[in-house]
């Protein structure tokens, strides 16, 4: 079992919420029926917006009077909104993504969320990352299950690479090999000194974990070193922010052909309870400049068509502002898809500001529609009831065989 605060909470909640059993049962059935399709050379880059991004100040219903009424102090002024059509606009802190929007390879999926929203950071990110219902507890990440249901590929450097901190989140799973790295060059150098120690089913869980990580380090380092030896120079300047540097590493891994289907980056600081007008645009600008550089690099390297970038976050924020020029934890929010196969535009539906539930937006699009899209259209796997929950994919990707 993953030992973390979530496990901690589950144990605490287990007595009061006897919900584990049904989840586990459906999962077992699913594993029997899952086909073992290959993932091809497609890559999914996930960007976690840590803390809960304020969707209403990201994709803004700026023509709606009620928006400004809900947010007398922190509404984004019209002069800082880039019109996206449909009475919606993008915060101009994201201006560097304008090129992608104009090129038609950026799509905003609106109103993503789930019923009975949970407003705890930890519980809600757990729901998003495991793909569970609000009242259901799952251990593995949704991509951990996705990897588990596809054919294993021994040539992979890893199933997933987490860049620059943060946990494996959606990539977590008993059968997924995830490595965390900050700097690929230092990583390969240090990995050479790690001894090969065989391991297997040892009852000593903590020790097993250590040995597994050692083995993964050695294997991944071998592959990364080999590929990066002939990495192309893409001539793209990345921003020097933490997030920008992570984007740069992601670009170098993908463009040098390091075989790894999942990459996760995180961008933190979105828990804007206070001082939002100053902090939120900074966060969005860092996000946009990093992603714009990543896009440019992958177009230059010819990899853009095999890459899909998707943001996610635990929740959006309260529709009404609080007394500290910020916003409290909320519910539904829009998320961004970028990639050479993305059909640009808006998908889903913007939540109606007239029908709030306790000052919160009501979601319009089950977040698992995004997962269904990634599962069935991006990786072209058969629908897995535990990943996509029987919901239909969104029409946001060009249909092109792997």
């Amino acid at each position, binding site marked *: 079992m993953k030992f973390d605060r979530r496990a901690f909470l589950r144990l*605490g909640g287990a007595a009061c919420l006897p919900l584990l059993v049904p989840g586990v049962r459906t999962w077992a059935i699913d594993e029997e029926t899952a086909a073992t399709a290959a993932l091809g050379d497609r890559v999914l880059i996930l960007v976690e917006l840590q803390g809960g991004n304020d969707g209403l100040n990201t994709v803004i219903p700026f023509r709606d009077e009620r928006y400004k009424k809900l947010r007398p102090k922190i509404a984004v002024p019209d002069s800082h909104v880039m019109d996206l059509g449909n009475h919606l606009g993008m915060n101009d802190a994201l201006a560097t993504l304008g090129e992608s929007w104009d090129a038609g390879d950026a799509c905003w999926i609106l109103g993503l969320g789930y019923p009975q929203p949970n407003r705890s950071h930890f519980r809600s990110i757990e729901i998003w990352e495991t793909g569970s219902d609000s009242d259901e507890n799952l251990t593995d990440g949704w991509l951990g299950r996705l990897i588990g249901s596809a054919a294993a590929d021994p040539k992979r450097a890893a199933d997933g690479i987490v860049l620059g901190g943060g946990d494996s989140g959606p990539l977590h799973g008993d059968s997924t090999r995830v490595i965390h790295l900050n700097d690929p060059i230092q990583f390969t150098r240090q990995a050479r000194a790690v001894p090969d120690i065989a391991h297997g089913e040892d009852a000593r869980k903590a*020790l097993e974990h250590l040995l597994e990580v050692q083995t993964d*380090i050695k294997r991944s380092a071998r592959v990364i070193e080999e590929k990066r030896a002939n990495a192309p120079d893409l001539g793209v300047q990345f921003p020097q922010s933490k997030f920008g540097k992570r984007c740069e590493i992601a670009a170098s891994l993908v463009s040098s052909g390091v075989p790894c289907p999942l990459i996760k980056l995180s961008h933190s600081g979105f828990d804007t309870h206070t001082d939002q007008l100053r902090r939120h645009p900074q966060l969005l600008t860092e996000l946009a400049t990093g992603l714009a550089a990543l896009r440019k690099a992958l177009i230059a390297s010819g990899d853009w068509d095999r890459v899909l970038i998707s943001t996610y976050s635990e929740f959006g924020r309260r529709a009404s502002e609080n007394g500290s020029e910020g916003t409290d934890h909320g519910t539904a929010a829009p998320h961004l898809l970028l990639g050479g196969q993305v059909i640009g535009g808006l998908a889903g539906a913007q939540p109606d500001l007239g029908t709030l539930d306790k000052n919160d937006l009501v979601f319009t699009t089950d977040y698992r529609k995004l997962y269904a899209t990634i599962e069935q259209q991006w990786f072209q796997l058969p629908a897995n009831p535990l990943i996509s929950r029987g919901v239909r994919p969104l029409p946001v990707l060009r249909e092109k065989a792997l």
Partner: protein
Amino acid sequence: MIRIPVLAEIDSYHSSMTSKRMKLRLPALARGGWLLTMLLVTTLVSGQDEPATTAEPAVDQKIATPIGLDGARHLLGRTIFGAPLDQLQRYSSLTREQAVDSLLETLTTTAVTPLPSWASLTPGKIQQQRGKTAESRKAFQKSIRRWQGELRGWWTRELISTPSPLTERLVLMWHGHFTSEMTKVRSAPAMLKQNQMFRQLCSGDFRQLLHRVAVDPAMAIYLDTRRSTREKPNENFARELLELYGLGEGNYSETDIQEAARAFTGYRIDHRTGELRRIRRRHDASEKTVLGVTGSLTATEVVDAVLADPACAEWISRRFWIEFVSPTPQATVLKQWAQALQQEDWSLRALLRITLLSDAFWAKENQGSLIKSPVDLVVGTMRSLKIEKAPAGQALRTISRLGQQLFDPPNVAGWPGGHHWIDATTLLGRRQFLTAEIHNLAILNQMQQLPQKDLRPPAQDAESEPEMMSPGNSPEMRVQRELPRRIKARERRRFMPQVLRELEQMWQSLGDTPDARSLRLQQWLLPFKPVGTVVEMGSIRDRLGSVLLDPTYQLK
């Protein structure tokens, strides 16, 4: 034959009545110093067989016999970041109860490291420093950053050289439980005040601790209580009080949070005193219901409602289990601990005693089941190898690189710990510390022991990281002054022989034959037999290095 009832009682330590009686009987043992303790141990041990076989032989014998070197390593590794071999050997001849009680006797409420110079400034003085001009503000921002570094350095120094590492272990635990991030709080004085509050109450009355947390200024900044008003209650603190600090998820409703948030409205930091104060006109005094308690509740009464909830004592017991026992708490045991905690008037010292004397703590399957935190690894290695005079700044940087930035847990839930400490990056970083950095620390440790005139002055460090404080305030401070982190080749040549000589002495003291020494070395430092190849020949440096690099050294 007084030992028969004593042994019987030890076995039933869950009952608060018996443990209270035991406390009355044992202080002489605990306070009497080593000589007396040893004498008593010998008496107890020599006569154990007869009474032990009459009742439950296996259990009683286990409890009455000395814990041995393995037991001492387990106990000290879990509680005081590990220890030098001589300390381990002293504990090894005690019974579980004697060892735990001796350990608990070391608890204290204050730090020994001299405080940074700004700690004596009053809140009013600090406000004055901020000034009104853009220039003075800018200078003030700069000193805020410097103070933050100094505060981190101060605590690291205390962790490395405190005579009461158990106290610091508890302070660190509470810092990870009642989290505040300096990145958001910004004020180093407020973070220091919180840290001192943890030190004062870490083994005291939990009720007092929770009440103090609720009105702690750094907390009020971190979780926005200070901005919460009657018109717009901010839910941040109320939510975490119920979810993370007091009860755990599943033990409250969203309504409880919203109602509790109204009770925490109207609190402001008084800039003259630095304390939290309730402003009547901003406070929502109307009726609220939190966890079944109704009234015009204030912060104090909401905390009381949390403490009155049966889930609270269990939640705290769970924290102790996860910190000290294993990653997988047993619900039935937690219930017993929770009951005992309440019967012991919420004494955290009593809960710690219960935890450390529990069968679960000593169970073979739980030994080595925890992954060392970066503080465990770095501070523990330095304390074990007696290189605690090495600069704290160096240790601090390593700890932070390995994922445990002191005063800045990753989020409000604190460090998730366990498997999360180890990923490809941090595992490689840990190896780097145990191969290269540890040697530098040993050299710097030697350099620090020389008279000051023999040393070059500290280099101008552009990053100006954790310098202890401006030098020259007092003789002690001069001794405490941090050395520069870079070591010149000349210094390495000069000091490395002394490092090696001391290592060699340590090696010789381990036993009579190389085989015995080698075994003792592993017993001292590893919870299991090594899984990698341990060097059985050659210099102590190579032997020690290979033991430290064995994956089992990462466990406790």
